């Protein structure tokens, strides 16, 4: 019993130390010129709370690219209730929306009351009482951010979602790879797997409970599926050659992937329960990086069958495979927008490898990021942002850009390279 306790404690300490290192911080690199002015007034009574709830909401809204929150020092007064709001003074500051609230402790947890006001209409749009368990204060702030975001934009908020990512340290023979899952703002990171061999291509199951990923821990690539709550996992494939690029079908029952067991990388779809495989491509070229259309009726994938890498779409009912990208000689690793009307991808231009969006109707491609070594775009479940891997100095960091390219930010890590971000589905 004592030994068990000790090892449990060691595991907790190990986890705690890794948590301290792996949290990501956020730097806004480009604000949107069309962002809506809003003010989030510090909540009354929350001064001694472990988290500044209003600041978390402020940061969330700013990072979304949709809002330009007023800096606190410019606030003339700090109302905590709609009855205290003097609308004229906020109009004078060009603020269009106002968030006020108060906070108190309740037993072991917290009690938050907030209101959202339309300043020009002098109208209360939203008001709610939220209770949070101990340790859930940030979660409550993310919940409130979601409500405010949706009330104003009409778009479901994604502040309660999470991201998976991989960190790498070292070089050549001496490397350590770690797979993490963190809140969408980079906080509250938790280690999922750590290995001296490569880990890549994490992919969320549609219910947000499992991750599929590629790990080389046996010195060969294999695809694993891990349940996040229990930590239990299974090896899904370990064929000779490449076992790569797992992608969940929208119903969560199948996994598309790239396997080179027949000699060249081809796209397959595996039924997770039966382990039956359906081969999707049959070419003498590279076929990899599959992604499902939101309706599950087609697969996007990268193929170099025309010479260089381009994106193709496989239609399940007709079996037809149609090329989608024609701008430039390198377009790869596509992901659909949640509405299925656009794809996000890596495009090579004279400036390097960048995140781009192509609208499927028009075929028009727009470059969204302004860095040179971008990889692994992953779309937020509400379609408003794309997170990707990029370089800052000599380190890999995560970047994010709004789907229209207007605003962007970075999430640098304290140590090591960060790469392979995967945005979770909605979890609430």
């Amino acid at each position, binding site marked *: 019993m004592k030994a068990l306790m000790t090892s449990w404690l060691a595991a907790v300490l190990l986890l705690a130390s890794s948590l301290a290192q792996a949290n990501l911080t956020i730097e806004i690199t480009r604000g949107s010129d069309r962002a809506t002015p809003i003010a989030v007034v510090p909540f009354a009574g929350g001064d001694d709370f472990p988290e500044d709830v209003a600041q978390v909401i402020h940061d969330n809204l700013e990072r979304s690219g949709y809002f330009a929150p007023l800096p606190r020092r410019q606030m003339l007064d700090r109302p905590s209730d709609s009855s205290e709001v003097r609308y004229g003074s906020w109009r004078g500051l060009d603020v269009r929306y106002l968030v006020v609230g108060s906070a108190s402790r309740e037993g072991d947890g917290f009690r938050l009351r907030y209101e959202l006001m339309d300043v020009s209409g002098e109208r209360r749009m939203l008001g709610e009482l939220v*209770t949070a368990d101990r340790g*859930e204060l940030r979660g409550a702030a993310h919940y409130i951010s979601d409500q405010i975001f949706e009330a104003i934009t009409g778009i479901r908020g994604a502040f309660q979602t999470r991201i998976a990512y991989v960190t790498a340290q070292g070089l050549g023979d001496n490397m350590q790879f770690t797979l993490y899952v963190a809140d969408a703002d980079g906080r509250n990171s938790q280690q999922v797997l750590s290995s001296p061999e490569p880990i*890549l291509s994490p992919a969320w199951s549609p219910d947000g409970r499992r991750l599929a990923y590629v790990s080389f821990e046996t010195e060969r690539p294999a695809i694993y599926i891990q349940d996040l709550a229990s930590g*239990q996992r299974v090896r899904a494939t370990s064929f000779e050659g490449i076992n790569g690029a797992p992608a969940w079908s929208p119903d969560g029952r199948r996994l598309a992937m790239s396997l080179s067991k027949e000699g060249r990388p081809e796209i397959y779809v595996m039924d997770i329960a039966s382990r039956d495989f359906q081969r999707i491509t049959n070419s003498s070229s590279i076929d*990899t990086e599959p992604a499902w259309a939101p309706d599950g009726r087609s697969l996007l994938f990268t193929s170099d069958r025309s010479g260089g*890498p381009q994106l193709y779409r496989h239609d399940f009912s007709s079996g037809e495979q149609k090329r989608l990208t024609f701008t430039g000689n390198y377009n790869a690793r596509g992901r659909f927008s949640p509405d299925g009307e656009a794809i996000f991808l890596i495009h090579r231009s004279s400036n390097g490898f960048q995140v781009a969006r192509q609208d499927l109707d028009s075929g028009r491609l727009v470059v969204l990021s302004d860095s040179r070594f971008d990889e692994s775009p992953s779309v937020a479940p509400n379609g408003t942002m794309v997170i990707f891997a990029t370089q800052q100095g000599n380190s890999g960091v995560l970047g994010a850009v709004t789907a229209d390219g207007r605003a962007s930010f970075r999430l640098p890590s304290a140590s090591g390279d960060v790469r392979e971000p995967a945005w979770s589905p909605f979890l*609430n």
Partner: protein
Amino acid sequence: MQPKRGLKPYARTLAVALSLAFVAGCSSSGGTQDGSMDGTRGGGAGGGVAGSGVSGSQVGGTGIGTGGAGQQADGRIPQQRTIYFEFDSDRIRSEFESVLASHARYLRENGGARVVLQGHTDERGTREYNMALGERRARSVERFLSVQGVSPSQMEVVSYGEERPAARGQNEEAHAQNRRVVFAY
């Protein structure tokens, strides 16, 4: 900047720590009519599982050293175990043909020897596509050795894509050192 990886490929300690981190999704059921929020994201942690090291099997190593780089006529594994590639290419450069020939000779003369051909790319481009490009390079070496009479059963191809760079940096010098195939015996 010769990667050391080829020297003792199986001597790496495989210590995969599986942290059973509890990462339940934010299970807030809050925000309905009463606005309550019962955040119950748990904080369970599990123990680590450490695998034990797999010790390496030395092949050859009994020959009397005469030692020209990549030119041993005895039973020793050729010393040069990395060859490099041009950008976006899997073509064997002529300057490395003698290196490949020495490995082919060694493998022919030591039928029990096995080699893993590890394909690598530079960091540019997407990871899974690079995984495929690394495999293409390693297969190109495999074909070359096969033509020289090496049995397919002695060779295995494993691509690492851009995951294990030998040199760091976003310049051509680093990129050139990373576009490689390593012979791991």
